[in-house]
Structure formats: structure tokens, C-alpha cells
């Protein structure tokens, strides 16, 4: 009987204890998130959003302007490339000097050789050296394609018209102009043949 009463007291005590714990826990949990923001939170948030919107607009404007500039640059590059493909360009190749154009030295004696070498390799004045390649380029432009696909000049057109209208005269003029050249060529060939005959000596023991 006494044990029963003791158990009931314990249960009652435990019930009170658990009730107290529950109350404290509920109070603690209620306080955990029961917080109020500082007054004017909404206004601050809205002001911040307005600022963000303005920033986003500015960013978009920059992005579009950059994209536009890039597009213009691409168009310019493409048009420039198309122009360079359809129009011939005079290339600035370095002029290859053939052996025939180089100054020849005749070997007679040692003194003459050195003198000739000295003349051949005499250093040019600085100004002349600097000017030389540009002048040469201007005088002898080397085309990538020859003859040039450009349209005929006025003089060429006149000439073509003359040849078409007065064909016989044109032929006569052409023959007359080429006759001295042919004579020169024939003389040259004769000279070279004669020279080669005299130079070659029979080998004798």
C-alpha cells in the first residue's frame, strides 16, 4: 500500500516535471524565432531593389554597346578581307637581282681584280642606301598575276582601236619597230658562236 502511494507520488512528480519541461521548451522555442526586424525594413529592401534594377540596366547597356562594337568590327574586317580578295595587290616582293644585272669584273691581274672588287663593293652613302629599295619598288612593281586583270588604260584602248581599224598599217609599223631588234639578236648570236669557236682549243699532249 505504501509502495503504491510512493509510485503515485513519483509519477505525479514526473508528470509535473515533464509538464514543466514542456512549458519551458515551448517558451524557449517560441522565443527562438520571435524576432522583429528593425523598422523600415521594407523600404530599405525596396530602395536596394531600385538600385539593383538601375545597375542591371547599366550593365545591359554596356553589354549591348560592347556587342554592337564587336559586330561593327567583325563587319569591317569581313569587308576589308573581301576587298583584298577581289582586288589584286601589288606585292612588295624583294627584288631578285639576276646574275646578269650584277656588275661584272674582268679578271686581268691581281691589282685590277682588287681595284674592281673595291669598286664593286664600295659602300654607298647612307642616304642612298636608305632610298634605294623604295625607288626600286616604285620603278619595278612585281605583280602577283601578270598580265594584270585590270581593265585596259586609255592609251591601250586607243591602240587596240587603231589596230582594229588600220590593221595593215599597224602590222607594218610593228615589223619596222621589231626589225632592228631582230638584227641585233642575229648579230649577237653570230658573235657568240664565233667567240666559242676561238676559245675552245684542242687538247694536245
Amino acid at each position, binding site marked *: 500500500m505504501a509502495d503504491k502511494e510512493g509510485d503515485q507520488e513519483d509519477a505525479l512528480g514526473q508528470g509535473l516535471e515533464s509538464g514543466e519541461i514542456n512549458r519551458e521548451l515551448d517558451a524557449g522555442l517560441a*522565443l*527562438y524565432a520571435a524576432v522583429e526586424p528593425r523598422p523600415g525594413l521594407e523600404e530599405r529592401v525596396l530602395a536596394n*531593389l531600385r538600385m539593383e534594377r538601375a545597375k542591371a540596366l547599366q550593365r545591359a547597356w554596356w553589354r549591348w554597346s560592347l556587342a554592337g562594337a564587336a559586330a561593327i568590327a567583325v563587319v569591317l574586317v569581313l569587308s576589308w578581307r573581301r576587298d583584298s580578295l577581289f582586288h589584286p595587290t601589288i606585292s612588295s616582293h624583294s627584288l631578285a637581282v639576276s646574275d646578269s644585272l650584277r656588275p661584272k669584273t674582268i679578271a686581268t691581274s691581281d691589282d685590277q681584280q682588287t681595284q674592281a672588287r673595291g669598286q664593286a663593293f664600295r659602300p654607298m652613302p647612307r642616304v642612298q642606301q636608305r632610298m634605294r629599295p623604295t625607288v626600286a619598288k616604285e620603278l619595278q612593281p612585281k605583280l602577283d598575276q601578270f598580265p594584270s586583270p585590270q581593265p585596259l588604260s586609255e592609251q591601250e584602248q586607243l591602240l587596240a582601236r587603231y589596230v582594229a581599224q588600220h590593221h595593215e598599217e599597224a602590222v607594218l609599223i610593228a615589223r619596222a619597230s621589231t626589225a632592228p631588234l631582230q638584227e641585233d639578236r642575229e648579230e649577237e648570236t653570230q658573235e657568240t658562236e664565233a667567240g666559242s669557236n676561238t676559245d675552245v682549243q684542242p687538247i694536245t699532249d
Partner: protein
Amino acid sequence: MSEGRQVVAGEAILQGVATAGRTQDAMIEALVREHSRLVYRIAYAVLRRHHDAEDSTQETFVRVLRYGSKLRSVEDAKTWVARIAWRVAVDRSRRQDRMREIPLEDNGNPLMEVAAPLVPADQVLQGTQVGRVVEKLIAALPDKLREPLILATIEELTPREIAGTLGINEAAVRSRVFRARQILRERMAERINSR
């Protein structure tokens, strides 16, 4: 005639765009006015600092603005905003690594703020102490149990909205909150018995 029609159509499109922009702005403004307190409370429940909670609230609504185009397709705007607020606060908390750190002194103590001025001083002190004990006990809970319990303490959120915020089902929310409360009760009983 056709040009006139085109001009009218163009003006209509521009007006439509402007109206859509205005509508979206109005919707966002309405969200701010309606849910900023909830967002703040969620942020505070995670971060436990007033200035962090306010920064988190600002960041939440900036994200809402960024995802404004999705706003029309959102079914439950409150849960949507709560989910964004939760993610922002948790990210911020991870960055600061203050999830389990209880500040010793916080000038803007929420427990003092909510305490009514007519409540006797001893009760205020007792309430503050209980609040701190509960805060420490909650911080010691595993993440899985702590997260739904934290959200459950916010009176504006129903278990269904908590489930939507955390991306779990409602039954899981209920069972986790029950288990979390059980653990807290046991630990509080241990503290009382040790007194």
C-alpha cells in the same frame, strides 16, 4: 495605311513590354511588403545575428528580382520566397561558419526585444536563460533534425510550407520535428535533474 498599322503594332508591343515590366515590379514590391518579415525571421533563425539577417533579407529579394521572370509560373509565392530565403541564409551561414557558434553578447538580443515591458524582471531573466539554453540545445542537434525544427519555430510557416522549403515531404517534417523536440526535452530534463 500598312505603315500606320505597323506603327500602332510597334507601340502596342512597347506598351506591352512596359506594362509587363511594371507588373513584375509591382509583383516584387507586393512580395517585399507581404513577406519581408517572414524572410527576416527565417534568416535570423539560421544566422542568429540581426545585421546578418538583414543582409540576408536584402540578398533574398535581389535574387527574387533576378528570377523575376519565373514569378508568373510560381504556384505558391510564399513557399518560393521562403525557399530562397532559406538557401541564402544557409549559404551565408556556411560561408561564415557560424552555424554552431553562439555569440556571447549580441546587442540586439531578440529575447529582450520580445519581452513585454510589464513582465517582472525575474521572469524576463528566467525567460532569457531558458531561451539561451534552448538555443544551445538546438545548435547541438544534427542538421537533419535542426533544420525542420528551426523552421517550425517560425509561426508563419505551416508544416506543408516547411516541407516545400526544405524539399522534403510533410510527414518527414512532422516526424523530424517530433524527434527533435523529444531530444530537447530529454536534455532539458537532464539539466533540471542535475540542478
